[in-house]
């Protein structure tokens, strides 16, 4: 184990770096798409059922299949990391649209009515009243999306771009446990670190939630 780490240390680190980028970029892209889409579905109720069915269909497409099919649709090379980023963004959007809608729906009607009464316009109401109150629900969804992205990136290794997933295929081919265990441990640690970071962001964004518990 130690011998493996001392010889392959740099390769493991670069795999970890690629893993972080491949997992995090889709979370940001997904959030940027899911917020406006979720808001539209919140405003226009008839959009809700079709969006919900569409997102569960997208979520049912196996990640391996999406990784392979995307180059055909996008016209990219099969080894292009872009395929992984787009595929994981699709999953993130599918997961987050639902939580954004749930989050906005969790805002009590009395609060929006009061905000309207004191003169908030629709945009101000959304940005300064509804979104902040929806933060806990949206970030709960973001935690799930981030953690599952970290796990899904490895599947890309079957196509040659998979961050830490390359350690799994490498270990399986050489019948060697060290890279596999290294990959699993780093993957879980990475998920843990990112998850804790989002919890930290939530603490900063919702200072009022701590007042009551004191």
């Amino acid at each position, binding site marked *: 184990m130690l011998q493996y780490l001392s010889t392959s240390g740099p390769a493991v680190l670069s795999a970890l770096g690629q893993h972080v980028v491949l997992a995090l970029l889709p979370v940001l892209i997904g959030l940027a798409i899911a917020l406006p889409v979720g808001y539209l579905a919140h405003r226009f109720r008839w959009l809700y059922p079709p969006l919900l069915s569409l997102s*569960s*269909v997208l*979520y*049912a*497409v*196996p*990640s*391996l*299949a*999406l990784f*392979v*099919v995307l180059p*055909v649709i996008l016209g990219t090379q099969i080894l292009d990391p872009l395929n992984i980023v787009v595929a994981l963004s699709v999953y993130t959007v599918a997961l987050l649209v639902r939580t954004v809608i749930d989050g906005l729906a969790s805002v009590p009607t009395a609060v929006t009515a009061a905000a309207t009464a004191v003169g908030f316009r629709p945009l101000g109401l959304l940005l300064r009243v509804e979104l902040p109150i929806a933060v806990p629900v949206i970030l709960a969804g973001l*935690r*799930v999306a981030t*953690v*599952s992205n*970290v*796990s899904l990136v*490895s*599947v890309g*290794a*079957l*196509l040659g771009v998979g961050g*830490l*997933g390359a*350690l*799994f*295929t490498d*270990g*399986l081919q050489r*019948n*060697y*446990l060290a890279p*596999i*265990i290294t*990959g*699993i441990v780093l*993957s*879980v640690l990475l*998920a*843990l670190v990112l*998850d804790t970071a989002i919890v930290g962001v939530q603490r900063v964004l919702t200072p009022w939630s701590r007042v009551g518990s004191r």
Partner: protein
Amino acid sequence: MSVVSDVAAFLVDGSNWQPGNPDGISARLLEHLQYTGIALVIAAAAAIPVGLYIGHTGRFAFVAINAGNAGRALPTLGLLSLVVILVGIGLVPVIVALVVLAIPPLLTATYAGLQSVDRATVDAARGQGMRERQVLLRTEVPIALPILMSGVRNATLQVVATATVAAYVALGGFGRFLVDGLAVREYAQVVAGAVLVATLAIVLDLLLACVQRLVVSPGVSGRALTRTTPRKVTP
């Protein structure tokens, strides 16, 4: 687009559907359902009783809350490779990887379902003289069923989609179309495999939605309300 017509041609090709053809869609469907079924039954047998215990007693709640996230973080491919090296190629590594994938949503949903039951209802059940077992099985579980079932549907969806990795370690299932198609750069087969998996996932979800409608009491799901509203009397 030629890929679309190739996919359609693959899917409607009669020889691909023949029950006797070991590489056919019917045979792959049975394998896929087999992996999914075994994994879900084992995961449910392990996760649901534990979730019921945690939800009913409120003890070890942190286990249920953290199991969700920790379990999701375990990369299925890594786990699969690990078990393959430890016990060799076969059904066991695939089932282990899928069970580990299915346990977190089942455990979290069982716990969350029991948490959603109003404490006053539980107290009332106890006040009526129900024993702990009866409180759990006849009051809490029926009320928790919608959330519990959503966990079952969620786990099924993930396991069906992920069972494709079985093909990576030389087993069957719909994943074969993905892995074989990728190996020979025959994308129509890959897309057809993806379509089959997604369709299977949706069909199973619809079936479970029907089961949910059957097992959830009308009083819990709200359907009873429409029955008690007085009919319009036409003069």
